[in-house]
């Protein structure tokens, strides 16, 4: 485990470009092809969502969007028509993902601050322990976790999917690396001289300084929680679903209503697509930073 990749300086970037030369036309063709393959399934969900089921079964297949999107959306949100309450699902997912995101950012920054800037016996060992937990496939403990939730009375309640995710090892790691690399000790010493307690230092010095990485961590956390499926399926189920559980429930009818299923799918990915369109650069930065630790 070493460091987060440092941002490439303009000087270095020039050298890389010179080394590799300009990309040839084949590179562009290849990447354009991959981009199309990336986009197509998402485009396809819109195509199916905007037709009725007879068009879905048409031969040859219809490849362009139709006019039935609004009709399918009305069906999706009409609780008489479908087997699951999609409004509830959207609101539930928004609540769960927001609460978890705020909490992960806050507690990760707090722990990252302690690991990066405070001295205490056992610091390095405890930090290694944090990293070690990332290798434990905790999902395999779902059965006792479920028993725990039964005892707590949390089955079918949102806190069952919120509580286990309130702080992550990945978040602590990311914050620790960022704070260690970008907040100068002098700034902290100065705050100490001014009589700040460590909590004051955290609030007045660290929190403002971590804003950029907090945004990245927040985005990645929100995405992960919004997309989570296995545990919500088990502990919530279709009666008080998240959006992923609701979407999968649409597909469990006896008649294959592809138009409706893919309308739900399209609605479920739309919020993240919009976020990705505006903040894609940050998400990419987060993936690349978080990954390089081997």
């Amino acid at each position, binding site marked *: 485990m070493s460091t987060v990749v440092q941002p490439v300086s303009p000087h270095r970037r020039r050298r890389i470009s010179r080394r590799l030369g300009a990309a040839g036309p084949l*590179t562009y063709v290849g990447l354009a092809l991959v981009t199309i393959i990336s986009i197509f399934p998402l485009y396809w969900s819109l195509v199916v969502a905007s037709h009725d089921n007879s068009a879905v079964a048409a031969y040859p297949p219809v490849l362009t969007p139709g006019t039935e999107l609004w009709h399918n959306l009305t069906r999706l949100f009409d609780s008489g028509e479908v087997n699951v309450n999609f409004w509830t699902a959207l609101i539930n997912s928004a609540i769960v993902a927001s609460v978890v995101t705020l909490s992960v950012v806050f507690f990760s920054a707090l722990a990252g601050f302690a690991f990066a800037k405070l001295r205490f016996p056992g*610091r390095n060992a405890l930090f290694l322990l944090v990293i070690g937990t990332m290798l434990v496939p905790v999902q395999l403990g779902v059965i006792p976790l479920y*028993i725990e939730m039964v005892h707590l009375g949390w089955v079918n309640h949102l806190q069952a999917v919120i509580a286990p995710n309130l702080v992550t090892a990945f978040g602590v790691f990311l914050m620790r690396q960022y704070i260690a690399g970008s907040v100068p000790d002098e700034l902290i010493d100065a705050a100490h001289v001014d009589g700040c307690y460590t909590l004051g230092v*955290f609030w007045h010095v660290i929190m403002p300084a971590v804003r950029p990485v907090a945004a990245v961590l927040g985005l990645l956390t929100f995405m992960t929680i919004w997309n989570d499926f296995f545990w919500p399926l088990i502990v919530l189920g279709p009666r008080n679903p998240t959006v*992923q559980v609701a979407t999968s429930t649409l597909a469990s009818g006896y008649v*294959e209503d592809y138009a409706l299923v893919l309308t739900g799918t399209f609605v479920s990915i739309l919020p993240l697509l919009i976020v990705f369109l505006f903040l894609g650069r940050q998400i990419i930065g987060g993936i690349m930073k978080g990954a390089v630790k081997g």
Partner: protein
Amino acid sequence: MQSPVTGAPVRRIGIRGRLHQLDERWSPYFYISPFFLLFIVFGLFPLGYTAWVSLTDRTLLDHSPNFIGLDNYTALLHDSYFWNAVENTLGIWVISTIPQLLIALGLATLLNTGLRARTFFRMGVVLPQVTSLVAVALIFTQLFSRDYGLVNYMLHFVGIHAIDWEAGRLSSWIALSVMVTWRWAGYNALIYLAAMQGIPDELYEAAAIDGAGRWKQFIHVTVPQLRNTIIFTVIISTIGGLQLFTEPYLFEPLKAGATGGSDRQYQTVVMYLYEKAFAGTQFKFGYASAIGWALFLLIALISLVNLLIVRRIRTAEA
């Protein structure tokens, strides 16, 4: 930072000073405690408790389960459905991980050039990662459907007729591995790209002086320099791939049974765990816990084998 313990100060330490000392001494533990508390309560304890439950015949809310020793594990060893699930999981894992990582390496090489519109192409490559597993599974299930699926429509142009992807063993594995590869290749490409940018130019220059072309540079400089990153991605794909659930679970026409097709042709280990514990009315928590621990061992074992193979390659090279 002042050290709280250095020598006796000339001035008397006031209450404020004492509070500062206490603060510096103990607050770090307080700040890192949320992580450890949550991990113990919702991660470590359940995992350990799984070991205990797996030694009992517990069902859902049975408050007095009987201790039955290793009976669940013995039964598991003779359970053909379990071995079938192991075989499926390993098969799907192999045919999705290898293409996925090779494609990722190729993509990273394409991205690691003096590109125009660099951010656009990176976004294009990583877009599938934003898409939820559920969405991927549902969209591709439609694309792979026998009668109206676009995949079969495209294949008929080359003379292949209406494959029932879901029904066959190999065909269902292929469909599932396409889903996995589509979602993860771009993510791994970004990881490789980040590592490639850290390779010192001097290595390429030296190789070029030695007369190595593009391909030789890739094999003799890029790949060895990425070794640690490749290990990292292989282990991550192992942990993820062996816990495959959402795609095969939603690939089934009726999403309730978790049997992985009528002949269990694509039931994975986690699906089998889910089937025993939560689907239907069995609620065999003890048995399902044994499945969980068996999978845990399998993941540890395969990660270890991966490490050994990579280390072998390393020593062979050196």
